[in-house]
């Protein structure tokens, strides 16, 4: 009995000293100090347990000290635990803060990227575009009847080169940043994008929305536009679909987007297949907007993507030009 008591005291003392030793590492955290002292007092209480084995006559006084120690230990443990609760709260705060600043960095990166793309697209379209147009007009104004033989071939070649340059400049500038999105908003930009896809004639697209000319923050418009384009491109490239339906619904400061196609679908667990479809890109775009995106396979054919996010609408405008 005595030996068991001694062993437990030794263990308690070791635990108490280790706990005290860790105080520095916890940066003198108050809850840890309380808990360490409580360990020390538990060991002390064990020592008091030993006293009656040696001094039979002091039992009454020991009993009082013993009770006092128990109250003190309980109080210290309680205080320690309460402070630990605080500690967890502040840890959560730090975690939230970290996540928020990560988000802000992500947003800043995307905004800068979009700004650069917009500027480049504008420089190309408004700077070089009119020059090419003017070259085209000038070449077409030449009196062709006076140009024959080899010179005529060269002029005709120049004409087709200019036409090709104008087409490719428009395409590049539009891909970099569609001016129609900035000037007239999401619906117009999507309509124009759909028009270009429909021209290929492979897919039938139904687009319905209740947002009309509502303008959202530029970041929201840009990210949603890019996501929707990516979805269309995935359908065109991978899905062998014939029908696509896109729905944009705004309700009480919430924007809900649903996209369906009747193609071959995909396997959401196939990381390789998903990585080729810009899925992670779409996720980070939505993360920057504090929204959610979900992909689902539809049986027997097709896929569905749902996007939900909270939005602040800018005053409804009919665009600027």
């Amino acid at each position, binding site marked *: 009995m005595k030996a068991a008591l001694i062993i437990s005291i030794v263990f308690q003392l070791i635990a108490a000293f280790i706990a005290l030793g860790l105080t520095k590492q916890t940066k003198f955290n108050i809850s840890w100090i309380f808990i360490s002292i409580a360990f020390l007092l538990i060991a002390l209480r064990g020592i008091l347990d030993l006293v009656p084995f040696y001094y039979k006559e002091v039992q009454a006084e020991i009993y009082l000290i013993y009770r006092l120690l128990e109250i003190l230990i309980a109080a210290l443990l309680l205080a320690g635990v309460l402070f630990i609760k605080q500690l967890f709260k502040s840890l959560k705060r730090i975690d939230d803060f970290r996540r928020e600043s990560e988000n802000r960095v992500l947003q800043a990166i995307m905004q800068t990227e979009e700004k650069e793309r917009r500027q480049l697209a504008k420089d190309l379209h*408004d700077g070089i575009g*009119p020059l090419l147009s*003017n*070259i085209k*007009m*000038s070449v*077409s*104004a030449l009196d062709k009847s006076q140009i024959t033989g080899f010179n005529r071939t060269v002029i005709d070649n120049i004409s087709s080169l200019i036409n090709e340059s*104008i087409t490719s400049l428009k395409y590049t500038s539009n891909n970099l940043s569609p001016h129609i999105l900035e000037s007239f908003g999401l619906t117009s930009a999507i309509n124009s994008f759909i028009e270009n896809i429909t021209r290929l004639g492979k897919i039938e697209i139904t687009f319905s929305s209740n947002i009309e000319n509502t303008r959202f923050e530029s970041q929201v418009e840009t990210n949603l536009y890019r996501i929707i384009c990516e979805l269309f491109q995935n359908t065109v490239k991978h899905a062998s679909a014939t029908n696509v339906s896109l729905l944009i619904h705004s309700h009480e400061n919430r924007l809900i987007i649903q996209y369906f196609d009747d193609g071959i679908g995909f396997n959401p667990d196939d990381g390789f297949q998903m990585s080729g479809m810009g899925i992670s890109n779409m996720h980070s775009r939505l993360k920057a907007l504090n929204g959610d995106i979900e992909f689902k396979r539809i049986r027997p054919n097709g896929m569905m993507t749902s996007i939900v996010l909270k939005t602040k609408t800018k005053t409804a405008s009919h665009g600027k*030009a």
Partner: protein
Amino acid sequence: MEKLNLLIVDDHKLFREGLKILLKNLEEVNEVWEASDGEVFLSMIKTCRPDLVLMDIEMPKVNGIEATSKALELFPDLKILALSMYGDEEYFQKMVDAGVCGFLLKNSEFSEVKKAINAVVQGNNYFTEEILYRLVNRFKSKPVQAEPLIALSDRELEVLLLICKGLSNQEIADQLFISKRTVDHHRASLLTKTNTRNAASLVIYAIKHKMIEV
């Protein structure tokens, strides 16, 4: 015919100068003036009266849409032809609402520029085919607008179709064997019935309601 005075409103200096060289070479052109933006244009037209204005849309200070409506408030007879890099329906619609007589893309061949200038100067409309084609395609996929079709008389319908073909009131009168005054009357009644502002928006109305094919 008297020689024409033209005014190019465009913020792109090289484009303006290049077009000026081409236009000045035309027999029917007398003088080509330049304005570098809508603001300069608005102050210029107080002193000079061009027969036709070639108007860009995207410009600093005052853009083409605003400049067109302000200029037409001051001089309702001024003929303005939009000459833009952008062929989007939205720009087209806004310029037509502002009151332009025609719409041309900057990447047109010069022969088309000449054609458009002549059409507009003679009091007709000119819309580049690329845009009309796009508009028709856009509306083809949509069901006909739900609003009940306003009751147009057969004669009004005939006049509307000829307006869409770009004929002037005199030409319509000649073709239908009626007086120009009657055509003026039909045109006014068409504008009122369809609640449109000018011939250009009348053309869009006709396209939207699938009354014509391009």
